[in-house]
């Protein structure tokens, strides 16, 4: 009896600990949210503001400082546009190429596979400067395409899909072929629906990664009307220093959409992560 009771107490303690840690982990987000809603004279002066309001957001969406106006809302749109395009393409190309490598047999498959591995392990930092030069030589400097084009294909996504498709019994594909289905039909009507757990995890990780990209977007785009929100925010640390409230509001606009998106898909997430580790 007393052993049982002790166990119960330990369990309550464990939940208490877990909840405290959870609050600690998300406290920076809560702080950001509260400060973005706080009256300006209280921002960064008190933890819990005396009143909450949307004035920081209104100021931000009105263009910000009149001496240094910035298109904050548009920057959010830029982030969404670039991230969505890049991620959708990465997922689609990942599935197509992954299928070709895992299911089809053609000469050149082996070298392509090896090359993908080589590219995955090649240190990307070496390519930063020449990739920028290439973008400039193509006349794409300061355009949306500069942020989008180099990111349309992810070797990691290809790798993940190829791994998954290899685990699907060959009979599935053979049977569909006998029924006269074309390869594209097999991909879109059989394989991609089967790969939903992979798609969820690949999409989420690639989306999150692209949403907060800084270095590349900062290098290839200078025009504030094309900058992503992350870049715009990074460049405003100095000049907007006296307006922390609106900067927190911009931080919320940058952070909370992706948290919400993640939470919507999170049901499959924890089990999905093991897919990444096992490969």
């Amino acid at each position, binding site marked *: 009896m007393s052993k049982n009771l002790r166990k119960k107490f330990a369990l309550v303690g464990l939940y208490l600990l877990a909840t405290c840690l959870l609050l600690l982990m998300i406290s920076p987000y809560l702080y950001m949210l509260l400060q973005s809603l706080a009256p300006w004279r209280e921002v960064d002066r008190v933890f819990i503001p005396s009143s909450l309001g949307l004035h920081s957001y209104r100021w931000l969406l009105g263009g910000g400082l009149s001496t240094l106006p910035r298109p904050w809302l548009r920057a959010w749109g830029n982030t969404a546009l670039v991230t969505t395009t890049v991620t959708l393409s990465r997922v689609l190309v990942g599935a197509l190429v992954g299928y070709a490598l895992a299911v089809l047999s053609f000469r050149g498959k082996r070298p392509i596979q090896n090359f993908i591995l080589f590219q995955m392990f090649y240190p990307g930092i070496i390519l930063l400067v020449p990739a920028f030069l290439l973008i400039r030589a193509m006349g794409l400097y300061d355009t949306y395409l500069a942020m989008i084009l180099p990111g349309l294909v992810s070797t990691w996504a290809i790798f993940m899909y190829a791994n998954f498709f290899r685990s699907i019994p060959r009979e599935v594909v053979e049977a569909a072929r006998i029924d006269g289905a074309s390869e594209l039909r097999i991909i879109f009507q059989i394989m991609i629906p089967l790969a939903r757990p992979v798609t969820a995890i690949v999409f989420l990780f690639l989306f999150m990664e692209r949403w907060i990209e800084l270095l590349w977007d900062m290098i290839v785009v200078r025009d504030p009307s094309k900058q992503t929100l992350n870049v715009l*925010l*990074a460049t405003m640390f100095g000049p907007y220093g006296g307006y922390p409230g609106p900067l927190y509001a911009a931080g919320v606009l940058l952070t909370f959409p992706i948290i919400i998106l993640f939470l919507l898909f999170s049901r499959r997430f924890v089990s999905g992560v093991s897919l990444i580790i096992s490969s």
Partner: protein
Amino acid sequence: MKWQKELGGWLLASPYLLSAVLFFLIPLGWSISLVFFDWNLISPVRTYIGLDNFREALSSTRVYNAFLNTYKFMAIIVPGVLVSSLSLALIVHHLPRLKQFYAVGFFLPYLASGVAIGLVVRGLLAYDSPFNEFLRQVFGSSPRWLRDPVWAVLVIGFMIIWKFSGYYALIFLAGLQGIPRELYEAASLDGAGPFTQFRKITLPLLYPAFYTVLVLAVGLCFGIFTEPYVLTGGGPRFATHTWQLEIYYQAFERFRAGYGAAVAVFNALATFISILIIRRIVEAWGARRGFR
């Protein structure tokens, strides 16, 4: 029929091939020639200077600081993130219900942009922030945080530990869930207490997860950019300067394309060699203990 099959394969693979040629092979070739030139990105004149870029990088105190700081960050981040992610995983693993809820919650920091969290950290550590007021009331003084070379490294290291703990915890969690329950039951029948069980069963069987997290965390330290870029600019006195900051500064602020590319080569080499050495050490340690 035969050629159709061939064509189909190549067609499906073509988006990858196109992007690999354009955004991997061409820059790769370009990087090889770039490092031998002195070029300011604009002028039509490029001067061939042989290995001078590498020589300059080797004797540069900026590069030396970036090199050294990486290991400073590593000394904080790697143990910190290992302990915190393993702790989070153990807690989640022992919860009978709501595992998913807590695991997802602990993962949320991973979604944070270093820029947005930089704002929070800057606000929290500002001289007259409520946090510092509190410290001054209790201890009589507050650290200079980002303007102190030691604290600045700790703060940025802590930000990175915070961000990755929940992610790595999922790797440990998968490892924990792969350990058969019978092992614990058998050990418990043999009279092993929870602590012994943890040391003799959990830790050895978590070795693969431990290895994965360790290699990921070490690699991470070579790519630090956002946090010091927004918070310290690499200061004070280069205490938080990193490889990527140096490459960005040289290539895109001073427009020294060749020199920046040469520093990037050293960055890649340092990363590669360090990871190789650390892997060897951990593998040897694991083999001696009979882990796999």
